[in-house]
């Protein structure tokens, strides 16, 4: 099993406090959101309902963990769990308070949620039958797990430009989607040596593309170099300012294949010369029970490479499994006199592996209580508009309707079609691009209103040498899709072509006309049903659709602070309340700190860190430090008004906006720095004979400026003079008084400077 780093566990434990802070209003929504999303907590469409996504590393889960998940589902998520297309389990419709309870319960079972959302390495995918399938080249699971562990141990991986999806397949059939991932490894042997074919920069969703091949063969032990190399390439080239163009495939699209590959090789060479990422753990080879052979035509039962051992595929409808049904399976497995292995798949289900033939049959029969052995019934549908904020169509309801249409169909018709991949919107969570049949949700404006529609794609595939995205052939109103699919099955049955792929190629003209027939949108008076989505009593609209949760990141937080500071500035102009100026200064100082990894709510720390990162580095005028001191004095009640600081605070706020606008795609500030302050004007040099020593205490806050003055005074002889540059406000009001109270003499206070004063003192 995976060893989870302590800091990842600790973060899970801190979640309770953060939620409490959020509920008390100490933590703003915009700040809480990227935090919770990084822990796999997504807000759903209804108020105060959340989805919690676990990290089931590479789909590897043991029976005790599965049992715990069942218990937690009963306690906190209405008794069901959802299997994803990335070998994870999700809890849906959870209250915020219960996300805390869930997360703590999961930690007890050694399950974390860190990095299941946000801009980071997501669950590392792994062929669910790695190590046992008949086409298995070798077991890639240890490599996938080591990659997970490597990623979880690297704090910088949690702040990438966007998601980073890594996959390991155990054979060219690519059951882990390596050929459409950000980084994919496909098992291969050369001269008896284990290794991988490496793919990269693929991905579904917006501007999708299959991966390009980056290496024909690498020794298996070198995989982590490639993980690190791709990560560094991503960090250096990924566009952080535009989340819609931030994925690795966008780098490929921007640079072109040749330059991308060259950049990748360069990154790889750098990693190889700087790091040692080799030895992997040896693959464990535990002795298995001997099996018994059966003859079965049930497609859910797959023979393993070991004689007499079988894997059974469990696919709950729409990927949603009730805890009672899960318990049925777990109880069955617990009663066996050996321990079978469970692996989650990327098709919203899971395999039970290493079953003896007779037991495999028993389990396959058991799951027919809530599942089906027909591919069409085991189709994939994303969560869709019922819960997902980005969803357009109620994709899960569509799948249910398709299933219903086939419910009483002739078995011959029912077995014609492959699994369908359905996404409720163009973001390919239902992986519609990779399906032999793919559907994705759209909204079309007709004369009588919006109509929920689905685009029809055919011919998607993954695998070495055959990865290709599906091609779109037309768009059909959602309500007509089930009948269309049914007619498609009838058409195929009549064609006597067994391969669906060949059927589409050979019969494409017939299919096109079928699509055309179904794509007609009748007026509402004639066919009102078209204007309602499945299972919805409300007329279809895009109300409630919002931006996606997963990419909520630093820019949103910066924008929040900047707009706050601008609001406070205009509030101040309206009402002349110094509190508003304080808040304006604070928000402005805070905005860009997140770029420096500083995330704090402590005012003093915000000002200090801003000084360190933006004033000491020259982007902002030095005099702002004294403004910060005044702000703090005001906060403490030592200063009544900030009105005379308005111009400087305005400068600060504007300067922050300029820095923000100058951010490069790597989020570096490109704004020119402020010119350094001029030297002391000649007029104040007292006399040439004994040049006056001038100590620069500008920007040094009270009382440290006085402390430093005392230190300098201790270095000179009695009767000698020394000068101090002191900021306006508190420093020039306080320091001369303090120095006098120690018995020294104030010779002169020169106020003819911009923002500071010159205090000349004779030592007692």
């Amino acid at each position, binding site marked *: 099993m995976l060893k989870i780093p302590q800091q990842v566990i600790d973060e899970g434990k801190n979640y309770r406090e953060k939620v409490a802070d959020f509920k008390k209003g100490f933590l703003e929504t915009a700040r809480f959101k990227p935090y919770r999303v990084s822990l796999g907590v997504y807000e759903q469409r209804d108020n105060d309902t959340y989805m919690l996504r676990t990290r089931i590393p590479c789909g590897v889960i043991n029976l005790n963990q599965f049992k715990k998940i069942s218990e937690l589902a009963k306690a906190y998520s209405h008794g069901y769990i959802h299997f994803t297309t990335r070998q994870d389990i999700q809890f849906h419709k959870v209250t915020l308070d219960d996300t805390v309870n869930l997360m703590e319960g999961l930690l007890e079972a050694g399950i974390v949620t860190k990095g299941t959302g946000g801009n980071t390495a997501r669950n590392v995918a792994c062929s669910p039958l790695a190590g046992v399938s008949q086409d298995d080249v070798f077991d890639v699971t240890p490599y996938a797990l080591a990659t997970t562990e490597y990623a979880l141990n690297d704090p910088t991986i949690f702040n990438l430009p966007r998601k980073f999806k890594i996959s390991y397949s155990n054979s060219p059939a690519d059951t882990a989607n390596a050929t459409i991932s950000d980084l994919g490894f496909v098992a291969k042997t050369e001269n008896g040596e284990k290794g991988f074919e490496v793919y990269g920069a693929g991905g579904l969703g917006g501007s999708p593309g299959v991966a390009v091949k980056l290496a024909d063969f690498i020794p298996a032990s070198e995989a982590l170099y490639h993980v690190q190399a791709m990560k560094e390439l991503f960090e250096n080239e990924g566009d952080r300012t535009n989340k819609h163009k931030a994925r690795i495939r966008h780098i490929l699209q921007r640079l072109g294949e040749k330059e991308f590959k060259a950049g990748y090789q360069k990154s790889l060479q750098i990693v190889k010369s700087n790091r040692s990422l080799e030895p992997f753990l040896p693959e464990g080879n535990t002795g298995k029970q001997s099996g018994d052979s059966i003859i079965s035509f049930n497609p859910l039962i797959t023979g393993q490479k070991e004689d007499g051992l079988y894997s059974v595929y469990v696919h709950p409808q729409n990927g949603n499994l009730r805890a009672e049904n899960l318990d049925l399976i777990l109880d069955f497995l617990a009663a066996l006199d050996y321990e079978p292995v469970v692996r989650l798949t990327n098709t919203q289900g899971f395999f039970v592996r290493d079953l003896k033939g007779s037991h495999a049959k028993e389990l396959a029969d058991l799951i027919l209580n809530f599942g089906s052995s027909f591919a069409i019934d085991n189709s994939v549908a994303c969560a869709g508009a019922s819960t997902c904020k980005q969803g357009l169509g109620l994709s899960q309801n569509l799948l249910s309707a398709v299933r219903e249409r086939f419910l009483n169909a002739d078995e011959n018709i029912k077995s014609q079609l492959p699994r369908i991949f359905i996404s409720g919107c163009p973001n390919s969570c239902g992986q519609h691009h990779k399906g032999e049949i793919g559907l994705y949700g759209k909204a079309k404006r007709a004369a009588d209103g919006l109509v929920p529609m689905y685009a029809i794609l055919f011919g998607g595939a993954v695998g070495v040498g055959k990865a290709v995205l599906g091609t779109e052939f037309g768009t059909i109103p959602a309500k007509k899709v089930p009948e269309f699919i049914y007619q498609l099955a009838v058409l195929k049955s009549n064609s006597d072509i067994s391969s669906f792929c060949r059927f589409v190629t050979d019969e494409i003209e017939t299919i096109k006309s079928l699509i055309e027939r179904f794509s007609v949108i009748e007026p509402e008076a004639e066919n009102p049903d078209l204007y309602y989505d499945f299972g919805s009593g409300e007329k279809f609209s895009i109300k409630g659709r919002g931006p996606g949760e997963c990419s909520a990141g630093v820019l949103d937080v910066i924008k929040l602070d900047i707009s706050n500071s601008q609001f406070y500035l205009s509030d101040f102009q309206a009402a002349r309340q110094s509190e508003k100026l304080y808040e304006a200064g604070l928000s402005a100082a805070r905005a860009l700190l997140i770029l420096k990894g500083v995330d704090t709510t402590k005012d003093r720390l915000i000002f200090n860190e801003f000084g360190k990162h933006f004033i000491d580095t020259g982007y902002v005028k030095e005099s702002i430090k004294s403004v910060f001191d005044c702000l703090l004095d005001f906060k403490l009640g030592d200063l009544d008004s900030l009105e005379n600081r308005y111009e400087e605070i305005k400068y600060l706020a504007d300067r922050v906006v300029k820095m923000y606008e100058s951010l490069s795609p790597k989020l570096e500030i490109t704004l020119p720095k402020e010119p350094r302050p001029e030297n002391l004007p000649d007029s104040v040099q007292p006399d040439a004979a004994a040049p006056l020593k001038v100590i620069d205490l500008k920007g040094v806050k009270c009382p*440290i400026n006085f*402390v430093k003055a*005392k*230190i300098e005074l*201790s270095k000179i002889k009695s009767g000698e003079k020394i000068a101090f540059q002191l900021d306006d406000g508190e420093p020039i009001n306080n320091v001369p008084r303090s120095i006098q*109270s120690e018995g020294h003499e104030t010779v002169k206070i020169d106020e003819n400077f911009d923002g500071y004063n010159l205090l000349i003192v004779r030592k007692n």
Partner: protein
Amino acid sequence: MDFNEQQIERYSRHIILSEVGVEGQQKILNSKVLVIGTGGLGAPAAMFLAAAGVGTIGLVDADKVDLSNLQRQIIHQTKDVGKLKVKSGEETINEMNPDVSVVTYHSFVDSSNILDIFKDQDYDFIIDGTDNFAAKFLINDACVMAKKPFSHAGIIRFNGQLTTYIPDNDTPCYRCMFKEPPPEGAVPSCREAGVLGVMGGVIGTLQATEALKYILGIGESLAGYLLTYNALTMEFIKINIKKNSKCPVCGDEPAIKTLIDYNGPVCTL
């Protein structure tokens, strides 16, 4: 010696005080204080001395941290239970202030080693943070003989007392007030009688105050006075004590010329 930026900030509240200032803080940084016993009294005393920037702090203790210590011996943490007290104290101080160098003596003090310990770093001031009469008389006698200023203190139940000895031929020593240890068993130890945890904090912190004032050469010390504190009535009483010319250790004709080990090992509160 110049202060670095961190020192300026760390000691700013000292430097601001006209009675301390730059020179005073430098004196503190150059000073060496020996704390005997890292228990109820020694723990807070050592911690405040470390926070103040006392350059060298010696810690003497033979014991290991026990869970029952933690109610008052705040230099030790729960994770330190079972660790040598001097080690645990050293770790706490190192974490608090990198300017302090800690010297540890994992031992009881007795007639054979106490003067060598004084000499080891030529300590400027000694804090008696022990919990038994044998050690208190030993420390007193050793300080008188070696001419070391020290702070004596004791705490029990809700009561505490302290005095300061300065080797100036004028200050009464502990033996001027109490000729010799009481008979064994006549006075209960803390172990038997109990003590409110904060008593060490109050009295130990006063001991640290005396040490700092001595180092800085400011104010008036408790030399010539016994200060008693009753936490139940919240009364501090400052009793004037005269030097006893017949004191067996600091009097005109001292009878005690070598150190005495009264009984039992020295253990700390």
